[in-house]
């Protein structure tokens, strides 16, 4: 299901109305029922995967918590008789026992994801390797249909399991409540990946009707739809045309493709998140922001702190740090300090874990080599810019003009363009083709396509360009205004009447200027496939 399906819109409106009509203590149950219904609609069998995840996590987190409590009791009981070393040894033993349960949970769940999402990819690669060694046997490749949103809810739930293992907060005792945390429907389409301690409170609170909050929420939802149907879906035909006919669309077309695709993915993904967070706001459930004006970033490291934030922090907290500080890594660091010099030893863990994390990040986006290459390219750019940081600092100290707003703007554009270039891997879905198309930008000189009408032949008409142009100006203006706090909130505080007018105007704009309906392929959410 997509946010733009009429069944979703109708269901959402009904759910919100009923939500405020039932007594507060039942509201979270309504959300659970709605979420299950929503997910069942996307494919009843998908519910099985989700149930396995919810149930295994529920049982194992409770088990881990019980073990931790028992261990603490034992330590307290032997407080006087045990020496410090004995206590330490017991604690570590208890922790490693709990760790085994965590591993079981992770292996079971990520294993499920691995089979469903990566099984075919892995088998195909094994077959390729067999081919290299002259083998004639091939493993049969079986394709599974990836359940919607699995990469989102699974990561969210595993984050919860790890946190319980780390004793960050107690485990949820009520299975139905945990079920809602796993299945909360607005997050199943495009994320974000929430943390239990951020999301849970709002989920079960059964919040009252607050006109301001609901108004702002509705406006945020409409703003999300505006981005999606007026911009992302409208520019999509051109993206499809550019990537499907690669013999013709070379040189300057590739550059235009980067721009179109950047707009497409930005409007689609941030629009989806706006809808999700807006729904949360209407229901009184705070959901973590996933974007922070990413295209205003001065460098790629900053960009990744501002784009798909919840995925970045998930990988940082549950993969990057654990790899970086694990025993083998520290041993490696120590060894290289002694053998290869202090500097190498100091940075080696960071480099190894950065590359590992980006390899996995690439894989998270899709089971294909182009995503892996894309991830690794990100790692390379990040590591290079990290190495060059002292040089940059010197540069900015030496030249005053490099500290002006104009230069900041230049850096933001540079970052945005660089990310667009990397995104070509995601766009063309084939590594050699991506390199080839990148090359044509240098030897195929055809800037005339910008003014000779060629851009009109990409499935976009003059009215389309008009909507896109005005839409981009609106996006930019909103982003600039938003730097000084929420535009919607300021407008509401200033005049409730104006705020209502904006809501109605947004609705009209979405309905009239959206690209949807007959004659137009309502395209799949890009982030839905992950």
């Amino acid at each position: 299901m997509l946010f733009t399906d009429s069944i979703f819109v109708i269901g959402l409106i009904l759910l919100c109305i009923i939500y405020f009509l039932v007594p507060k203590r039942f509201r979270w149950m309504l959300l659970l029922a709605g979420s299950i219904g929503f997910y069942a609609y996307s494919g009843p069998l998908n519910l099985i995967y989700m149930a396995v995840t919810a149930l295994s996590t529920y049982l194992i987190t409770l088990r881990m918590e019980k073990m931790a409590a028992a261990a603490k009791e034992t330590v307290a009981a032997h407080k006087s008789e045990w020496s410090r070393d004995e206590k330490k040894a017991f604690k570590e033993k208890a922790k490693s026992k709990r760790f085994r349960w965590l591993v079981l949970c992770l292996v079971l769940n990520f294993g499920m994801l691995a089979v469903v999402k990566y099984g075919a990819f892995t088998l195909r690669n094994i077959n390729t390797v067999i081919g290299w060694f002259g083998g004639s046997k091939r493993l049969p490749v079986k394709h599974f249909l990836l359940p919607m949103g699995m990469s989102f809810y699974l990561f969210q739930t595993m984050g919860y399991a790890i946190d319980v293992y780390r004793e960050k907060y107690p485990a949820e005792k009520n299975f139905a409540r945990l079920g809602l945390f796993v299945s909360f429907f607005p997050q199943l389409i495009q994320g974000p990946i929430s943390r239990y301690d951020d999301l849970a409170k709002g989920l079960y609170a059964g919040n009252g009707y607050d006109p301001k909050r609901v108004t702002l929420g509705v406006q945020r939802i409409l703003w999300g739809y505006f981005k999606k149907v007026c911009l992302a879906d409208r520019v999509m035909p051109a993206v499809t045309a550019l990537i499907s006919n690669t013999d013709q669309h070379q040189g300057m077309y590739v550059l235009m493709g980067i721009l179109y695709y950047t707009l497409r993915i930005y409007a689609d993904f941030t629009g989806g998140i706006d809808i999700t967070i807006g729904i949360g706001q209407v229901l009184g459930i705070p959901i973590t922001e996933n974007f922070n004006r990413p295209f205003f970033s001065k460098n790629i490291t900053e960009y990744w702190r501002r784009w798909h934030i919840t995925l970045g922090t998930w990988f940082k907290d549950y993969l990057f740090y654990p790899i970086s500080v694990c025993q083998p890594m520290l041993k490696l660091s120590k060894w290289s300090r002694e053998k290869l010099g202090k500097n190498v030893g100091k940075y080696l863990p960071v480099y190894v874990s950065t590359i590992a994390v980006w390899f996995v990040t690439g894989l998270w986006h899709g089971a294909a080599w182009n995503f892996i290459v894309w991830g690794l390219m990100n790692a390379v750019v990040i590591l290079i810019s990290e190495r060059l940081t002292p040089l940059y600092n010197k540069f900015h100290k030496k030249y005053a003009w490099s500290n002006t707003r104009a230069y900041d703007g230049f850096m933001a554009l540079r970052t945005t363009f660089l990310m667009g270039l990397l995104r070509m891997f995601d766009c063309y879905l084939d590594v050699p083709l991506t390199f080839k198309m990148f090359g044509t930008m240098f030897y195929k000189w055809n800037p005339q396509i910008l003014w000779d009408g060629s851009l009109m032949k990409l499935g976009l008409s003059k009215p389309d360009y008009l909507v896109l142009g005005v839409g981009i100006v609106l996006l930019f203006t909103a982003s600039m205004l938003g730097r000084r706090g929420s535009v919607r909130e300021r407008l509401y505080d200033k005049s409730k009447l104006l705020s209502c007018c904006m809501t109605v105007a947004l609705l009209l704009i979405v309905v009239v200027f959206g690209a949807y309906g007959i004659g137009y392929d309502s395209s799949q959410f890009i982030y839905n496939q992950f």
Partner: protein
Amino acid sequence: MGKKKRIFAGLATVTSAVVLLAAVQRLLQPKYMSDVVEGNLIASYYDTGKDHDVLFIGDCECYENFSPVEMWRDYGISSTIRGSAQQLIWQSYYLLEDTLRYEKPDVVVFNVLSMKYGEPQSEAYNRMSIEGMRWSKSKVNCIKASMTEEESFLSYVFPILRYHSRWSELTADDFKYYFGAEPNFFSGYYLRADAKPAENVPKGTPLIDYSFSENCWNYLDKMMSLCAENNIQLVLIKAPSLYPYWYEEWDEQITEYAEKYHLPYINFLDPSIQEQTGIDYAADTYDGGLHLNVYGAEKLSRWFGAYLAERYDLRDRSGESKLAAEWDEICARYDAEIARQLKNLEQYGNVKGE
């Protein structure tokens, strides 16, 4: 803010949004005045009187081939056509249901060409056949039966979802006819006064399967029983259009069906009937044999009016003053339209006057 005030503010916002959307929707919906005028046919029924003896249902072979004005003038028969472009048989059936909500004619005439379509055909024709209907259970069923795969029911309820992209194609007509179309038709008849002789009408290419689909037969059955329940005489016809080609094999199936259920069936393509109606394909068609012009339609209606009056005991109602007043208005518009078209033909060489 007090609770009452809050509720009021919420309701006011929702209402203004709905009103505004409805207003914009009206603007964006096609007005069907200058170009595809057929889009207004179905809706035009509701603006006329509801006292008809004969109801025609069917596709363009109905609304371009029969002139109710002629039948009124010659025999005092009050008739109307609920025709639309490529009207499919289930649409005809539901239009019959819909019409029966308003009146009960003595005779229903159904043109059987649409028996050839067993499945939904074209979204655009669906729109023109259905959107003009007023909301009723019949309309809901009609939509459900007609939708092609790409269509959604919701876009019939809220046509703005279908026509929103017309914002870039609005014309002066959209503003001029914002509050309603001008009457274009004459009791459902689409009038053309020009002529284009039928030459080299293509023969039908052989088909693999000539049998009509189960679906169509079902609706014909339903149509028959609905008429029987209401004590209405159902008359099946095949209008004298030369194209689309009417196969011998098709004709046999209809003839057989009509005999089985004792229904009258008139094939106006039959040479013996053609002789009686006197249609001259060199002068009486405006598009080379697909549809008759007003002269052909009048000839056909004269014959058919006599046939109906005689067989089904239709009284001459020209003496009923209320009904006569309604028809006088239609006849006056009818004559004016013929005069206008003839003048345009003389001046510009076409009926539109462009």
